[in-house]
């Protein structure tokens, strides 16, 4: 089926199940022409279809970024929350500002969680060196500021984000920043109970272990 036919079958779906399978097929096409239609689905208040549409937007990748950013002005909170998740998954540096704001202020833990993990894996290869250092520094500051989030899953995602930054952008992080990153992970790895470590503490210990043994970072 052509992408136009796939879009037509999304638009004519007359049940939740039919919509879900039509969106899944459209997402699998990975075609930039599907972007507008996939963005509309994010506003339908149908979580199953929205998850499939987010996967589709992530698969389209770079060409979907501008349309997603343009769609954020909508008043529909649900649609914006799904858009943040798509931007986090795509990892395009143009999403940085949205991810920073989402991690700092969004009321939904699942949105802050996606933003934190997205900040750790932005793909900065297309950018000049000086911009890369600036974006890495901004991502790091956003993650450090969220270490005290009230939700365990957001702190877990912050740990994963910090590990990602240290392991993939380690060369771009200053010695000072790397020290701050490791201090934050060490802080998240300890708890008041010596006999029980919760999942965030355990994941932080693993992140520190991996950073110290990766050899990819300087210092």
């Amino acid at each position, binding site marked *: 089926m052509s992408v136009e036919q796939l879009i037509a079958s999304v638009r004519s779906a007359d049940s939740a199940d039919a919509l879900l399978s039509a969106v899944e097929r459209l997402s699998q096409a990975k075609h930039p022409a599907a972007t507008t239609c996939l963005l509309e689905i994010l506003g339908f208040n149908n979580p199953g279809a929205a998850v499939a549409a987010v996967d589709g937007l992530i698969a389209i990748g770079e060409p979907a970024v501008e349309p997603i950013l343009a769609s954020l002005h909508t008043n529909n909170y649900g649609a914006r929350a799904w858009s943040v998740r798509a931007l986090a998954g795509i990892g395009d540096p143009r999403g940085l500002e949205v991810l920073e704001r989402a991690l700092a202020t969004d009321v939904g833990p699942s949105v802050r969680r996606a933003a934190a993990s997205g900040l750790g894996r932005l793909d900065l290869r297309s950018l000049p060196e000086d911009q890369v250092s600036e974006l890495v520094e901004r991502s790091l500051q956003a993650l450090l500021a969220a270490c005290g989030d009230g939700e365990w899953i957001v702190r*877990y995602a912050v740990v994963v984000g910090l590990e990602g930054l240290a392991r993939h952008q380690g060369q771009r992080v200053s010695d000072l920043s790397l020290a701050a990153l490791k201090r934050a992970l060490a802080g998240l790895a300890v708890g008041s109970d010596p006999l029980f470590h919760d999942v965030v503490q355990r994941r932080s210990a693993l992140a520190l272990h991996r950073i110290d043994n990766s050899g990819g970072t300087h210092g």
Partner: protein
Amino acid sequence: MSAPSPTPFEMAEPIDEEEALRWLRATDDPSAQYYAAWWLGRHRSQHPDTLPLLLAAMRQRRARQIGDGVEENAVARNATRAVGKLGPHASEAIPTLLELLDDPDYGLREAAARSLGSLKAKAALPALLARLQSGPDVAGARALDSATLVEPCEALLEAIGDLGISGDEVLGVLESFSTHERPVVQSSACRSLLQLTQEPRWGERLKALLLHPQLQVRRAALMDLGAAGWRPATQAIAATLAENSLKLIALRGLVESAPSDSFDEEIFEVMDGLL
């Protein structure tokens, strides 16, 4: 187990402990008391006034007025849930919780059972078993006047598993509910049987429920596998058609069920992929 639902209070105005205690004392304002009881539990308040005030609130009764939109005995129910979150120092509440297990109000019995389980009140075992002894056809039958069962079976079954005491009588009661007509009740029974026996067949039953056509059942099985910490379900949890948030809660349960002397890289890899 039923999946956690976001509480209506998450976005409410922040208050502090002093204020919550003041609100809970205000017996002329049940909605302030309702919020205060929830707040003190959520923040695991260790203030010396917290427990006595919650115990008093657990005895407050308010009949339902049709159409007023307020849950029957709402303050008492929230206070009962709150004491279960306070940890070992709330053991003073156990005699009151045992009384509430025989209350005519279904919701209070349910809250009391859950709190007895989370306080690991071993003395509650005979009382919990007694409420289920009549089996799925009586205790587990549908109530005449509501969509609930005669007894809050899920809460009672799960509390029995939480206590961690096994034995022929306990296992017999749990097994009788493992074939209950409602899959969510089966899930609760299998969870406790898995916790008490560590027999893989109960874990396999829960894994099969992850494929149930109803989302509500898949969610229950996720929470129950997480509570039992059954690690062979790691990949099945990841593949379940349900919200990532719930899968992550279940996987956290798998991680935290084991000692922390080694890294759980397989489970962490799955969790990282669900963020």
